[in-house]
């Protein structure tokens, strides 16, 4: 909705010794202003101690995600006018992650879980082998292609209620990554991946409610990737019992 006021009422989360509280700022409205512009304006004009994180400003690096009016968003690509409610904007650090200071979260747990989900490449060849030919139209490659556009922003992780309730749940992004590698003809760790995502806190902790898919700024669907992993782990469950 479009507002006629000259300034925005912005509440920004500030950490302090006891946890934190929202602090109010009046920020001049500008044309095509993004949430990241708002945060930067406050830091440059009102309070240089405000901590936040960004790098590319064009939706590539995945470092600027914050909660905006209660929803996780990439702030560099989120226009104020699209998310404003009344004349108010509430900006808070990303959900489901520890806060370092103000709007900057500690993303270590998020990335540690990528490794735990075996979201790392398992090479199958050496430099002496011929390069493997990949058919870009194969089923596996198309499955993988859908998932590889992830920018590691942790927005899906912040949107996921299973992450909030199940401490060791690997989360949508890590499992999406595991699924792309599972479908990668050049990855030799298929069983390693299935074992990792079948452990407690793996893909079976997902309730398939799709908050991740709704929130992902790159329109990825981690829920569908997780459904793929559930199918493959179920198949492997029976195959192992037969052999």
């Amino acid at each position, binding site marked *: 909705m479009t507002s006629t006021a000259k300034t925005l009422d912005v509440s920004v989360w500030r950490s302090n010794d006891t946890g934190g509280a929202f602090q109010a700022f009046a920020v001049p409205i500008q044309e095509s202003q993004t949430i990241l512009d708002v945060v930067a304006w406050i830091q440059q004009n009102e309070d240089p101690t405000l901590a936040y994180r960004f790098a590319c400003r064009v939706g590539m690096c995945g470092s600027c995600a914050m909660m905006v009016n209660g929803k996780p968003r990439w702030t560099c690509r989120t226009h104020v006018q699209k998310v404003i409610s009344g004349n108010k904007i509430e900006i808070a650090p990303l959900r489901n992650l520890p806060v370092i200071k103000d709007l900057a979260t500690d993303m270590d747990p998020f990335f540690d879980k990528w490794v735990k989900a075996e979201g790392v490449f398992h090479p199958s060849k050496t430099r002496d082998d011929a390069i493997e030919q990949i058919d870009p139209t194969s089923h596996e490659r198309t499955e993988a292609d859908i998932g590889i556009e992830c920018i590691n922003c942790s927005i899906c992780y912040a949107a996921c209620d299973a992450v909030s309730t199940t401490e060791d749940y690997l989360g949508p992004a890590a499992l999406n990554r595991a699924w792309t590698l599972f479908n990668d003809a050049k990855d030799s760790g298929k069983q390693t991946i299935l074992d990792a995502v079948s452990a*407690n*806190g*793996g893909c*079976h*902790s997902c309730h398939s409610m799709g908050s991740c898919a709704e929130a992902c700024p790159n329109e990825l669907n981690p829920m569908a990737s997780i459904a793929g992993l*559930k199918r493959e782990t*179920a198949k492997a*469950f029976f195959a192992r019992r037969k052999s």
Partner: protein
Amino acid sequence: MTDLWLYMAQRISALVMAPLVLGHIAVMIYAIQGGLSAGEILGRTQGSFGWALFYGTFVVAVSIHAAIGLRTIAFEVLGLKGSALTVFAWVVFLVLFVMGAQAVYAVTAT
């Protein structure tokens, strides 16, 4: 028990239950429309191995399915963990199983 085992047990018990639920509903409609009395129903179920198997399987599947489902809710909503969670799931399973088995016995034993 790992999450994978619980996941598989819950899916398989659901698969088992699906046709049994339909069968159960069909039997209910048939019994009501035909105006069967309790005595007439007991006359057919008592000593029937088929009905004992049908509802016996149902009871086992329901007990497994519900125990795993409630276990997840107890973990996520009430924060139960570790052995408390395991005990909770087994208690749910046993209560449902014993009550169900008792009912099946009551209508099929001669």
